[in-house]
């Protein structure tokens, strides 16, 4: 299964993207998303902040990287290290 990590926002709003093939089952992926999903991604008092989204074949979900379980940390660290700017337009 292909997963995509997206980072959006910032003082100069840009979208960055990284993709990776993983061998997670759909059930496993569902549980992971439930664990890291952010229900309310409104800015609150944050200004110029960046946010992360995880995209897979089930949809796009706002996520909190701090909540990623230890088992998946390396996958997400690799994705984060390989984020590339999506050229606008």
């Amino acid at each position, binding site marked *: 299964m292909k997963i995509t990590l997206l980072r959006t926002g910032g*003082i100069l709003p840009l979208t960055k993207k990284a993709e990776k093939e993983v061998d997670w089952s759909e059930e496993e992926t569902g549980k992971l998303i439930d664990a890291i999903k952010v229900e309310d991604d409104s800015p609150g008092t944050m200004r*110029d902040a960046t946010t992360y989204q995880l995209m897979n074949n089930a949809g796009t979900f706002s996520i909190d990287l701090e909540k990623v379980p230890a088992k998946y940390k390396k996958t997400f660290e690799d994705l984060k290290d390989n984020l590339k700017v999506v050229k*606008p337009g």
Partner: protein
Amino acid sequence: MCKNHFSPVQCIIPPYVNDKLTDSDNKEISKNAINSKFRNYRFRSDRDFFKNTTLQEKTVLGAISRKQDKLKNPKMQVFNCNKSTSLTNATLVWKDTDTRLPRDKDAKNVVQAGRGTWNFYYDLFGRNSIDNLGMTIQQYIHYDKKYSNAFWDGRKMIFGDGDGTLFGSFTTDIDIIGHELTHGVTQFEANLDYHVQAGALNESFSDVFGIMIKQRMRNEDVKESNWLIGENVLLGNNYALRSLKAPGTAYLNHPEIGDDPQPATMNDFIKLPDTAAGDWGGVHYNSGIPNFAFYVTAFNLGGFAWEKAGRIWYGALTDTTHLKCNATFADMKKVTVRIAGELFGKKSLEEKAVKDGWAAAKV
């Protein structure tokens, strides 16, 4: 236990408890509670009064000059995140009681720009820090690995080192540090929503005060300034994050990020979804419109931007009666025109300059 049980300033007693005490059979307790209720009313009333006074009124009443004698140095702390995203584990590397500047270049940058920002608000407007109550300015540097951003989290400023290819350190531009700190000031004043036009005004206030803070630290007048925000952080000779003078030209044909999309006028207002991916309705895009209105106003008035245009915009930012949290550009125009009239006179050159500024931005 508190030293003075019934002082609403020194000891917080819930009003419902105080109300009960006023009915007490013990005359002494009842008397103290009634006095406390009265002082509480006076305290709130005074606070409301001073919140809505103009700069001139504050000066006449001595509210500014008295403060200036007491406050000499900004309260500030700098923390090193050591490339982690944890703020709780960050190391304190500098505090305002330290006599020397920090060795770390980024720490030094945020201390110097933090002082410049604090002095700007304090010297010109008598403002005592971000919340006007002396809040300690906390700045976090070296956040995350190669993090290309700076942000305000509601209490603190956080700066990344940049990826080293597209962006350098986010502490290298005074205006970015002033921009983030001004988000704090806005939060404690107009508290503009971070969506669509109100959000774009929120961003614009940060750009407007960010550029003035840089201009003042460099002693640049409106003609000497290049009116660019982030001219160092976006790597490359001819790039900046934003231009107040010519929104939409801060970077052109950039190999990675293309062209600056900011509009300068209302005709080109960009409609984007009110989502994180849509920049909450384009708050960093459409801020170009009020930014341009400010630039035209300040340029036509001449001299240093903070002397006239800056006073008018600060008056608007702190006019929480008229500038509501969901304000539109048209609301901001009305407020700034009114404040220009109050500060400099109806039909004054300053009032006309403000009207011309908004007309140039087609608001």
